[in-house]
């Protein structure tokens, strides 16, 4: 089996951003892979752009880092000129500008989430081609394929902070179970009017799903069971 250690670092990834009643929650897994080798099993894919705006990165690790760095720099200058914190919309637009204008060279899907005093909590999804879509929740990365149906069923408007975070952790954990390119720990970032809170959920403490559970009432129990005891004479 070829590990292909020369492959560029890719973040297979599962990234999620959801709005709730009062702010946003961003969540991500922590696996960075180089081909089949896990280069970093505890990476932080949720990067800060400003005090009140963060971005979830997926796709090429290098591309997403460079784009984030540029936008952080532009936003810093913008904040100084404006004299007040940048809005989430402006942050998303700057990312979109870079993503669209360099679409031929970049391979990174991003989810921008934050809180500002004008619009409150907002999530913007910026997938591969450089479109910007403002959404009540967004999912991205290779692991997100397994979450579309889940969110259709589980998502609702105006959740509380606790409900929303539970939803995010559950979703990332489900994706990690099915997607080989996602794994490690679950990191979440909560952004609201009061500020930013980072949370960490170790991989071995996550809920087990389906085939990971201990079998119950399985045929295997019968096969594994000891044979009948010889009768006492």
């Amino acid at each position: 089996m070829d590990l292909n250690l020369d492959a560029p670092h890719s973040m297979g990834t599962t990234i999620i951003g959801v709005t709730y009643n009062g702010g946003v929650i961003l969540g991500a897994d922590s696996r960075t892979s180089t081909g089949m080798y896990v280069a970093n099993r505890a990476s932080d894919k949720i990067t800060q752009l400003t005090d009140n705006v963060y971005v979830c990165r997926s796709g090429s690790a290098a591309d997403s880092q460079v784009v984030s760095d540029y936008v952080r720099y532009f936003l810093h200058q913008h904040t100084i000129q404006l004299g007040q914190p940048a809005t989430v919309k402006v942050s998303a637009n700057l990312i979109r500008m870079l993503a669209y204008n360099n679409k031929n060279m970049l391979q990174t899907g991003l989810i921008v989430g934050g809180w500002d005093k004008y619009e409150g909590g907002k999530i913007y999804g910026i997938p591969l081609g450089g479109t910007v879509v403002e959404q009540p929740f967004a999912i991205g990365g290779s692991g997100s394929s397994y979450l579309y149906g889940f969110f259709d069923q589980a998502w609702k408007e105006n959740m509380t902070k606790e409900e929303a975070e539970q939803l995010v952790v559950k979703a990332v954990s489900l994706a990690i179970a099915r997607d080989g390119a996602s794994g490690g720990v679950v990191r979440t970032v909560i952004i609201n009017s009061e500020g930013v809170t980072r949370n960490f959920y170790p991989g071995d403490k996550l809920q087990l799903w389906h085939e990971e559970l201990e079998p119950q009432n399985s045929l295997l129990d019968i096969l594994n069971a000891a044979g009948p005891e010889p009768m006492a004479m």
Partner: protein
Amino acid sequence: MVVSSRSSMPPRLSTTICSFNFTGNIAGPLNPSGVEKLIASKMMLPGSNRRIHSVHRHAGMAVAGLAADGRQIVARAKSEARSYESVYGEAVPVKELSERVASYVHLCTLYWWLRPFGCGVILGGYDRDGPQLYMIEPSGISYRYFGAAIGKGKQAAKTEIEKLKLSEMTCKEGVIEVAKIIYKLHDEAKDKAFELEMSWICEESKREHQKVPDDLLEEAKTAAKTALEEMDAD
């Protein structure tokens, strides 16, 4: 300011511009602006020699002074507003726009091969933080105001504005007050006839910079003339 009333020289700062910005209690925050345009020749069509220009959907500029210089400033403001929107994806905040325009005007005071602009500008706009009014002078200074005036009669206009209770006025009342002030300041003996040009940005104009509707303009003119007659009658 020196005024030349003969049309052989281009009129220098001969127009008075008066505008205010405030939060009215009933009709909401707003920004009416009025310009007293001295008519240089009876051959000119009414409505020509525009002094108030839209810089963007949500912002407008009134120019007093050399019209040609004013054109440059307006063009620059339009360009800055457009480029901000294309980069940041939102309408340019009025504060940011005024700083950019002031910076440009100031630039022209720094180098020996450039001459300063021969006009002042009042920039009014409505952004996320409500309506705002800024004045940019030829020196490149820019301040935010609740009431401002430039041009020939600016001192008297400022005195009149200070008498008003801006925080208690509505949209329409503001328009009428501006008209009254301009009519009051116009000196019948010294100057020729004038044309009143007005624009506003308020909730009623859907937060967009527009010419004041004709019926309201007429109402304002009539009210102003009546107020003048009442004053003369005393």
